[in-house]
């Protein structure tokens, strides 16, 4: 059992457990904190998969910015423990559980078939600098310059939209 296996189970198991925490905790604040923890575990997995820039981005943007916004809103609305949520099952929910289970089974079998049919593992050697800042930055500003510019417009729309929706008076 190599180091990679240990890390995979550590990060993967941690991600699944903390995501369970998001789903099951009664208090939304606990959900938010569990989500941050799961983001950190996933960042670990990204680093294992030679996506170093994305691992850093995951921590900086997701855990650092987006989740701070979530926690901020939770504090602003201040409804800490008052949630009384009864897990009752109506037909829609049963259907969604079934569809979810079906998707999971389909995905597991597809993933296994995918690997059985061709190369078992990743290439042992990666191109130098794969997943680093320089390589991704180069790709973003050459081949992917159009989506990159569109992201700028998208963020502008996000800002304007958020202000329009949440401002108290016109």
């Amino acid at each position: 059992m190599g180091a990679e296996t240990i890390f995979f189970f550590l990060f993967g198991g941690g991600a699944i457990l903390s995501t369970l925490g998001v789903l099951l905790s009664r208090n939304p604040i606990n959900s938010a904190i569990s989500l941050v923890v799961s983001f950190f575990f996933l960042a670990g997995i990204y680093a294992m998969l030679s996506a170093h820039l994305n691992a850093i981005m995951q921590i900086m943007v997701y855990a650092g910015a987006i989740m701070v916004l979530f926690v901020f809103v939770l504090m602003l609305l201040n409804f800490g423990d008052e949630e009384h949520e009864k897990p009752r099952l109506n037909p829609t929910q049963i259907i969604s559980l079934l569809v979810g289970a079906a998707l999971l089974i389909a995905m597991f079998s597809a993933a296994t078939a995918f690997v059985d049919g061709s190369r078992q593992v990743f290439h042992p050697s990666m191109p130098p600098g794969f997943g680093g800042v320089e390589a991704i930055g180069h790709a973003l500003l050459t081949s992917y310059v159009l989506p990159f510019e569109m992201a700028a417009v998208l963020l502008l729309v996000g800002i304007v939209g958020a202000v329009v929706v949440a401002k108290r008076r016109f």
Partner: protein
Amino acid sequence: MSSLITPIDIASTLPFIVLCLFGMVVLLLEVFQRQGQSRSYLAYVSAVGFATAAFSAWLLMGVEGQLVFHDMNYIDGFSKVTALLMCTAGAVTCLIAPRYLAELNADRGEFYALILFSAGGMIMMVSAADFIVFFMALELMSIAVYALAAYVRSSRVAAEAGFKYFLMGAFASAIMLYGIALVYGATGTTNLAAIGQLLSYGAASGSVDPALLLSKVSEQGALAGAAGYDTTTGDLLMLNYGSGTANMPLLYLGITLVIVSAVFKVGAVPFHMWLPDAYSGAPSPVGAFMASAVKAAAFASLLRLLALAFFDYELRMGPMGWVQVTFFLALLSMAIGNLVAIAQTSVKRMLAYSSIAHTGYMLVAITAMGYGVGDLDLGASVVFYLFAYVFGTVGAFGILAYLTRSRYYVERFSDLNGLGYRYPALGVAMTLFMLSSAGIPPTAGFIAKFQVFKAAVIAYGAGVEAGEPGALLLLALVVSGILFSVVGVYYYLKVIVHLYMRDPVREVTASDSGPARVGISVCAIATLVIGLFPGPLLNLSEQAMSQMEGRHDGVYVQYEDGAPIEDLQRLMREGSR
């Protein structure tokens, strides 16, 4: 490395750039406005923006279809014609909005800016050549529309509807992304045309040498971007492809997820639950925009997606093919949409359910397009239908907005009582929109429905000739479509009956808005003119489909030991004509 951005790149995305620029100009103008000043001139500014964008799209009609921006985007007949469609819908939405917003005390420039940005996203979405651009454009469109749906903050209904719409939309986006990720995993590329070519030539037989094929495809320019960083190892892109069935489950799962979420966005039954609430809860001009432009963009990009990436014979007609899926969705949408619309007491909800029914009619054409040997030119009927549908829908929502006053939303059928006499022009316009939606001549809707059903009959004929299984089902789809249209006539005529044959219950006074009158008149005139002289628009929509770059005509060729490369090149030339 060639230069970063070439002039043709900029020129070809001109409609998008113009819309973004106007969006920013509107935002800046808003900064210098004082509280309480009227912003209705911004409606004209935005309409000018849409007109400029449409004009630039028109100018680009002459440019030969090609890939731009490092194979990220297409400039072709299809993207330009659909850009005209989006610009029209956006411009009319801006025109009907100002008075409505003023009445609800929400007269702010951001509204127009968001409409402009959203339309920009739509234009990129229908011209996307790569899943990355497709996804970014989809989100640009959606995020602006989410904000617009909750735009009138004083309304609890709008807040609620906006949030539910947002949550469903985000859910659908996540599902689509997962599908894209799986397709990327199975094929190694996110380029739409490349996926289509790989699926067809790779899946046809395992005997094609993938690397050889890839180099040939690369010469054609379609795969240049997808080849990416593979220079070190050369064969990497195709490593897992062509080896046969191993990646097929993953691929099918991915495609299913992408198509399901696309169907979710167009609002076909059974993925329609969010739609009536969203359309009727949103402010009327936003409802108009969502029902017309957003739906048109979703349909047009679905056409592009199917035609480029997923038009392989096995994918369409195989045991899990999407033709079966669209067949049932079309049938269900027509049935549920029309039958539930009858029961509505709110005109807005009736329009929402009728738009589900319209989704069903368009899915009939998409089913026909994918049936049997597959004839992409039949997709032209969808483009034409979208034009007719957009004018009818924006017009009808526009009239509801026109009638809305500060304290009173005009929503119920009884609110329209007797208005045909008090506002003769308005009555005529509404009658036209309803006739068009019902598909009664001499309006645009009649020609549109005729085209859609004609497409299905043509596909039936071709299917019988080729001995495809289940061709009769296509004919059954046409018959049920016609029957359900007859059912639909009932609730459209109900509006006209209320307009002319019922006594008014309450005083409803129209908000005497100049821009709205312009917008509604444009829709009414277009509905009538297209109905009387459909020729030019029919040509335009046929041109849109025939000039769609990178389209993949579903050539299904069984190559035996080593494909003849000359043949391959010829097929690809024909495929991307």
